[in-house]
Structure formats: structure tokens, C-alpha cells
């Protein structure tokens, strides 16, 4: 931080925490690392004490400046000035505004203290509250002497990055839904516990010892306390049942609602008439337990959606525009949406890239974790493309915008995600249909059980509780609830591994696939040249030659040049510079490195200074680049389109799992066959045009095969659309056109094998859930029908069963 006070350790009159002067009679002292230090105010003392209590004393040892005092925050970062009171997002009434800000970097109690205290001192701020769990700050302020920029500036001054939170209606709704469900759960729990107290005497008393009037009093009390549970807590079930009946289908809420209604209705009748059994305890307990598993499921889904939500908030709102660079280095802060192609922008450390661009100056490393799942920062230098939404984790760079923010890679991703949300997976549709039949059968069965017992006993005394038990004990949850939960958990898990699933059927179909069709160029191989080996032609060391070549090629964007530079960087770049570089189009480069003249390029071009060319044959498919000095041939760089390092593992994985791997390539047959043989692929066909590939896939499908296609997404669009399930290697422009069901965001081929593994696990979990549901329902429903289960036992059984399937589905989030 540039605006902190420099550390001055040998001045006893200064506050040890913030560096301000300490009043003479200051009583505030904190023992830090067994030395008593004086503080200027109780605030600093509290923060210091908190830091000590948290075991963070090392902060004082390691710090290079005093903690920022409020006065240090006066300089505003210009991008924060963009927000003003006219923004409709903030409107509250005539002269006051309110907003929720997302604050980054909340770590401890001191943060809360610091932020709220700081904002409370800001003129015009009415209230400021920080929610630690969600990292959201709620502020209310007056328009006449405060601006949003001031608030953000104040936060910035004490070291927190904050930005207005776009509280979309959807997120707001979600929050309210969770709050309502929590309340319903609380009410059901309270009502369950109280009702339990009132029914205890009836259970404990021996026959005849409980006074009739006392029993009646207990029943009335139970009835009153069951009412909140019925009228408020059970609302989700009433609504669910009503909605599904209106849609002329039988959802899983129908038997639940019927069971509750039947048990409660019969109990009310018994209470009024003074004879017969009451089941208030069963009703409240059933509502409570069922709400518990709903709550669990809601939270799981919310967590699964969090990764996608993060993605949607990754694009920054503003950018630093360099209007007259390089003549004038002045920065203008503009809205990211206003950036046009070829604008130059400055990306500071810690900032997100506002739009897809190419670095024109500087080198840095980028955090692409949101976009690709790759957690380690990726080094980028001049000439490299950087996607919008990436975080600059290194030093300042200048970049040229290549696509508008609205068309950036991240926007395309978000469009893909939105597309994915619309459709329901086939297996979930199937589960819904089966659940509907299941519920219909169950209702008939409950009615039949009631009639049978009524006929046997001649009265409803036993028939009624049995019908209730049958309705309550059945558990269609494994079908309607657990399948979507499993699929959501798996999708979230895959996104964290860098696979964006956009098609609804992806996991299911990938699991069923019999044929894996792979494209060669760009899929099994990098799709660009890589340095295979450096052949020495003289006594000069190969790595030395490579560094010389890299020094000459640094500024070039040619694919062969990039390959050499990348290889040099991997080998540990020396950053040598070349002087007097001359490029001869189509031939190569000439320049001075360490005062020696070199030529790099084609054999003929290099022989211009190096003399007669060496008579070494170059293997097929390899592009040679020669390096020579005056009168001496030095090295020959063998460049070819190399196999991806995980190609072999991926092919092996699918072969091991009994799938037929097919390599289909547009390159000539011999070249395709060589790659195929190298990887051990049985079927290799080369020389196929896109139309040939399409008919090849369709032919396979006519024979009943399920085809998974993996390609690079651009020229294979038609084939990908035709295949049953398709994966596209994700990179830049390819995304927008991808007709794929899944995009490999990090360009790692091995992610396909990961997806297959996750798909297998997901299907296994779904099968386990279905199996459990079958076993449970087949045993529990007949047991209830012959009178072995009373209503409360049925309620417990049903709640446990639904918790089992939801928890089982959630295992998918944990496994790697």
C-alpha cells in the first residue's frame, strides 16, 4: 500500500498499531509477543488484541508499515469514481441511497470492526453493516454529502476491494426462499417438540388412569400447536401437490399432502367427537423431518450453483483505457462495455481483464482459475492472447482489445451456461415419469388397503391409520429429488475440473457411449508446432543454440517462432536480446546476439552466411528450422505438431473401459495412421473431409452405436452436432460456435477421461439411489399395509430414506 505511514519503530510516543500519537494518559495497552505496547485508542487496542488472540502476532513482526489510518484513504482510485448517485441501482428515496457492496478479503473480526468503524465515520453515511458469511456490505447514505465512490474509496483506503453487488432479482428470490424454508423448519420443530410433550401422558399412562377430561385437554392443546405446522410449515407440500395436480400430473408431494391431510383431518374429528385416535405427534414430526431433507437438498443445490454464479460475476465493470499511447500515457477510466476493438488498455496487478485482448507490452502471469479450472497462474508475455475475466496475478501489462467485452470468451461461456439451464436431462425426465406412475399406483394401493381393512374389521378404526401409514411411508424421493441433485453435484464437480457441461444429456450419454471418435489435429495433438528436438550441427551446446534462437524470435508472432520461444522459456529463458534484427519474409531472421551474427530460418537462407548446407535428412512430418553463424552451421530445430502429453492416457482409459476408440482425421492416411499406431488406436481413417466424417459417424449410429465425438470445435461443428455427445477443446473463438455438449475449458484432453469417470460415478450413484428406493418401498409399503407400521414410524422411515438418497448424491461433490 502506497498510502500507509512508514514504520518508525523507535518512537515510544506513537501508537504501536496505527502510528498516531498517543495521548499522555492513555490507559490502553496490549501485550504483543510478551512486550507491553501502548495504543492511542480503545479501537486500536481491540484490533491489536484480536490479532494477538487469533495468534497472528507475526503480523507485527512482518509488517513494513503501520496499519492504515482513516486519514490515509483520501486518494481515490479513479475507477471507483465511476459510480455516482445518479445510478438507478442505488435509489432509495429523495435524498438517501442504499446499496449492497461485495467486499473481498474479509478474514477476521478486525476486518468487520475496521470496515464498519471506518464507514460510520464517513460523512453522510447513515448505517453500514457487514455480513461476514456472504461478504456483503449493506450501506445507506445521504446524497448531499456522500457518493458511492467515497464509500468504495474509504474501503479501498483500508485495504479492501469492494464493488456494487448486482442484486439481481433471482439471487434475492433465492435468499428469501432459503429464509422461508428455515423459518418453516423452525416452526415445525418447535411445534413437534411441544406436541410431543402433550401426547407423552397418553403414551405413558396405564389404561384408565388418565382422566377423560385431562386427555381431552391435551388433545385440544396438541391441535392448537399442530395448526402452525399445518398452516405454515407444510405450505411447500400443499403448494407442490396443488401445482402438480393442476398440471394434471402426480408429483411426489401428492401422497405427502394426502397423508398429512388424512392424519390431521382424522385427528381433528377425533378431538371434536372425543373418541378415536389422534396422530398430532406423527403429523408434526413428519413435516419436520421431511423439511429437514428438503433443506439439505436446497443447500446442496445452492452450493452446486455457486461456481457458475462466480463465473457470471467475473467480468469487471471498468477498464483503464490508454487513449494516446505511446505518445501520452494518461489513463482514462471507462466502462468495460465502452471498449472498442484495438483500444489499448492497462491491466494492473490484481485487476481482471475487461475484454479479450493481446498483450502488447510487458509480461505477467494470469490467474485463469475461473475460466479453466487451472489453479496455478499461467505466464503470459507479449503477443499472447488473454481472455476477459482472467485475473492479472503478476505485473502491469498493456494489452490491445481484440473483441468487445460483450463478445468476450467469458460472455460466450455464460451464454452456453444459460442455454444449458433450460432443458432437463432425459434421465431426470424419465425419473419424473416413473415417479408419477409410482404415485398413482401408491394412491390406488392405499385405497385398496383401506378398503381391505375396512372390510375385515367392519370399521375405519384400523383401516384409517393403515392408509395413512401407506401414504406416508412411500418415498418417491429417490426418483424426483435425488436424480437432479446427483446431476447438479456432478456438473459442479466437473466445472471445478475445467469441464463446462452445457448439454443436458452429456453425462448419461457419455456413460453409454460405445465409440469414442477423436479428431487428430488440435485434439490428440496441439494443433501447432512444438519443438521436438534440437539437433546439434557443431560443437555449440544445444541449449545455448536454443537461447540464441529464442532471443532472435522473441518479437515474432509466427507459429514456428512461438514454438522456439516457448521451448526456451520451458528450459529456463536467459532473456538475451538480439540487436539489428532483420526479417526476410518467407526465409528467416538475421541479427546480432552477444556481438555475433546469426541467421535463423530455412536451409537456403542460412547457407547465405554459413556456407554449404549439411546433408542430414529430416524425418517425415517435421519442419526444420536452421541456425547458423558466419561460416558455421550450429543447429537444426525439429518442429512438428506434437501429441498432447495426456493423449496416451486418455486413449488407454477408454480402451480399458471397453469402448472402441476411432481416430478420424482430415490429414492424409499415412500421417493419421502413424499417430494412431503410436497411441494404439485400432481404427484409424485419414483424408476425411468434414462431410466424410459426418457420414462416418452417421453410419456408426445406424449400426446402433452410441458415438462420443471429441474435436476442436471449429471445423467439426457439423459432426459434433450429429454425434450423440460431443466435447470441444475450448479455446477463444471456438467456444461461440461450439455445438458441443461439453467444453474442455483448460484444453486438457485428459479432462474427457475425468468426465467419463464422473459420468460413471454419477450413474452409479443414481442406480444406487434407485436400487435403495426400490428395496425400501417394496418392503416398507407392504409392511405398512398389513399394519406393522404405525403412522409415526412411517414418517421416520420416509424421512430417513430421503436423507439417504440426497446424502448419497452429495458424495459426488467430494470425490476427485
Amino acid at each position, binding site marked *: 500500500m502506497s498510502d500507509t505511514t512508514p514504520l518508525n519503530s523507535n518512537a515510544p510516543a506513537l501508537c504501536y498499531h496505527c502510528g498516531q500519537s498517543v495521548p499522555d494518559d492513555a490507559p490502553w495497552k496490549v501485550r504483543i509477543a510478551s512486550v507491553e505496547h501502548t495504543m492511542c*485508542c480503545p479501537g486500536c487496542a481491540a484490533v491489536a488484541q484480536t490479532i494477538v488472540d487469533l495468534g497472528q502476532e507475526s503480523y507485527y513482526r512482518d509488517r513494513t508499515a503501520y496499519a492504515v489510518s482513516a486519514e490515509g484513504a483520501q486518494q481515490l482510485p479513479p475507477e471507483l469514481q465511476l459510480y455516482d448517485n445518479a445510478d438507478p441501482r442505488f435509489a432509495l428515496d429523495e435524498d438517501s441511497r442504499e446499496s449492497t457492496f461485495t467486499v473481498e478479503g474479509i478474514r477476521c473480526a478486525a476486518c*468487520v470492526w475496521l470496515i464498519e*468503524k471506518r464507514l460510520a465515520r464517513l460523512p453522510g453515511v447513515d448505517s453500514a453493516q457487514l455480513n*461476514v458469511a456472504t461478504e456483503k456490505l449493506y450501506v445507506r447514505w445521504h446524497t448531499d454529502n456522500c457518493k458511492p465512490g467515497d464509500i468504495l474509496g474509504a474501503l479501498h483506503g483500508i485495504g479492501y476491494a469492494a464493488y456494487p453487488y448486482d442484486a439481481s432479482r433471482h439471487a434475492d428470490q433465492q435468499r428469501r426462499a432459503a429464509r422461508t424454508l428455515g*423459518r418453516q423448519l423452525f416452526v415445525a420443530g418447535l411445534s413437534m417438540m411441544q406436541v410431543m410433550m402433550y401426547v407423552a401422558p397418553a403414551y405413558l399412562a396405564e389404561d384408565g388412569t388418565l382422566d377423560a377430561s385431562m386427555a381431552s385437554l391435551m388433545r385440544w392443546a396438541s391441535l392448537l400447536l399442530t395448526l402452525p405446522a399445518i398452516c405454515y410449515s407444510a405450505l411447500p407440500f400443499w403448494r407442490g401437490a396443488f401445482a402438480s395436480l393442476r398440471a394434471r400430473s402426480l408429483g411426489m408431494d401428492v401422497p405427502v399432502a394426502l397423508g398429512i391431510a388424512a392424519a390431521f383431518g382424522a385427528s381433528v374429528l377425533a378431538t371434536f367427537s372425543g373418541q378415536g385416535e389422534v396422530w398430532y405427534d406423527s403429523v408434526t414430526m413428519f413435516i419436520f423431518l421431511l423439511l429437514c431433507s428438503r433443506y439439505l437438498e436446497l443447500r446442496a443445490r445452492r452450493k452446486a450453483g455457486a461456481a457458475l454464479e462466480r463465473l457470471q460475476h467475473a467480468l469487471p465493470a471498468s477498464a483503464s483505457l490508454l487513449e494516446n499511447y505511446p505518445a501520452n500515457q494518461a489513463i482514462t477510466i471507462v466502462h468495460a462495455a465502452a471498449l472498442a476493438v484495438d483500444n489499448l488498455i492497462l491491466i494492473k496487478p490484481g485487476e481482471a481483464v475487461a475484454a479479450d485482448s493481446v498483450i502488447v507490452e510487458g509480461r505477467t502471469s494470469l490467474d485463469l482459475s475461473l475460466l479453466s479450472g487451472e489453479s496455478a497462474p499461467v505466464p503470459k508475455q507479449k503477443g499472447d492472447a488473454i481472455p476477459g475475466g482472467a485475473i492479472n496475478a503478476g505485473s502491469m501489462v498493456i494489452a490491445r482489445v481484440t473483441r468487445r467485452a460483450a463478445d468476450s470468451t467469458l460472455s460466450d461461456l455464460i451464454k452456453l451456461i444459460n442455454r444449458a439451464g433450460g432443458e432437463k436431462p432425459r434421465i431426470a425426465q424419465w425419473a419424473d415419469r416413473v415417479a408419477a406412475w409410482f404415485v398413482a399406483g401408491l394412491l390406488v394401493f392405499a385405497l385398496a388397503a383401506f378398503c381391505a381393512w375396512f372390510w375385515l374389521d367392519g370399521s375405519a378404526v384400523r383401516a384409517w391409520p393403515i392408509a395413512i401409514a401407506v401414504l406416508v411411508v412411500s418415498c418417491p424421493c429417490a426418483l424426483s429429488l435425488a436424480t437432479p441433485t446427483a446431476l447438479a453435484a456432478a456438473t459442479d464437480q466437473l466445472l471445478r475440473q475445467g469441464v463446462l457441461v452445457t448439454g443436458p444429456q452429456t453425462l448419461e450419454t457419455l456413460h453409454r457411449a460405445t465409440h469414442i471418435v477423436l479428431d487428430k489435429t488440435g485434439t490428440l495433438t496441439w494443433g501447432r508446432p512444438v519443438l521436438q528436438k534440437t539437433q546439434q550441427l557443431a560443437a555449440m551446446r544445444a541449449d545455448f543454440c536454443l537461447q540464441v534462437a529464442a532471443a532472435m524470435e522473441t518479437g515474432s508472432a509466427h507459429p514456428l517462432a512461438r514454438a522456439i520461444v516457448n521451448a526456451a522459456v520451458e528450459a529456463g529463458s536467459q532473456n538475451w536480446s538480439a540487436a539489428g534484427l532483420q526479417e526476410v519474409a518467407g526465409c528467416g531472421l538475421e541479427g546480432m546476439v552477444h556481438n555475433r551474427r546469426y541467421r535463423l530460418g530455412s536451409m537456403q537462407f542460412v547457407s547465405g552466411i554459413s556456407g554449404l548446407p549439411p546433408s542430414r535428412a529430416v524425418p517425415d512430418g517435421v519442419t526444420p528450422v536452421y541456425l547458423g553463424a558466419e561460416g558455421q552451421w550450429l543447429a537444426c530445430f525439429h518442429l512438428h505438431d506434437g501429441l498432447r502429453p495426456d493423449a496416451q492416457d486418455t486413449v488407454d482409459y477408454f480402451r480399458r473401459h471397453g469402448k472402441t476408440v476411432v481416430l478420424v482425421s482430415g490429414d492424409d492416411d499415412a500421417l493419421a495412421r502413424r499417430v494412431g499406431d503410436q497411441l494404439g488406436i485400432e481404427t484409424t481413417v485419414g483424408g476425411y473431409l468434414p462431410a466424410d466424417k459426418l457420414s462416418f459417424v452417421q453410419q456408426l449410429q445406424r449400426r446402433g452405436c452410441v458415438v462420443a465425438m471429441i474435436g476442436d470445435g471449429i471445423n467439426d461443428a457439423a459432426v459434433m452436432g450429429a454425434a450423440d455427445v460431443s466435447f470441444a477443446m475450448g479455446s477463444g473463438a471456438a467456444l461461440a460456435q461450439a455445438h458441443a455438449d461439453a467444453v474442455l475449458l483448460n484444453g486438457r484432453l485428459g479432462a474427457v477421461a475425468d468426465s467419463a469417470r464422473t459420468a460413471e460415478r454419477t450413474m452409479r450413484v443414481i442406480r444406487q439411489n434407485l436400487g435403495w428406493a426400490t428395496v425400501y418401498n417394496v418392503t416398507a409399503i407392504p409392511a405398512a399395509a398389513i399394519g406393522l407400521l404405525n403412522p409415526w414410524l412411517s414418517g421416520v422411515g420416509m424421512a430417513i430414506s430421503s436423507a439417504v438418497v440426497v446424502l448419497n448424491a452429495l458424495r459426488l461433490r467430494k470425490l476427485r
Partner: protein
Amino acid sequence: MEALYLLIPLSVVLVFAALWVFFRASDDGQFDDLVGPALRILQDDDLPPPHHK
């Protein structure tokens, strides 16, 4: 025994009172953030500022 005729209705009333209190607290956002208030207690707003201003 007769006391129960008073106590049980009283307990019903108490439970409803508890529900009312819970709803009010929930409306005020009492349960939205279960961590922050415990930290906020550190603020010494009630003490007069010891120096300047």
C-alpha cells in the same frame, strides 16, 4: 391436577409468543448472519472518544 387446566393453555400461549418473537427476529435479519454480531461486540461505540474531535 387442577393446575394443569391453567398451565397447559398457558404453555400453548407461550409457544405462540415464542413463534411471534422468532418471526420478528427473523424479519429483522437476526438469522441472516450468525457470525458477524459476535465480532461486532468488539466495537466500543459507547465510550466517548478519548482524544481529538
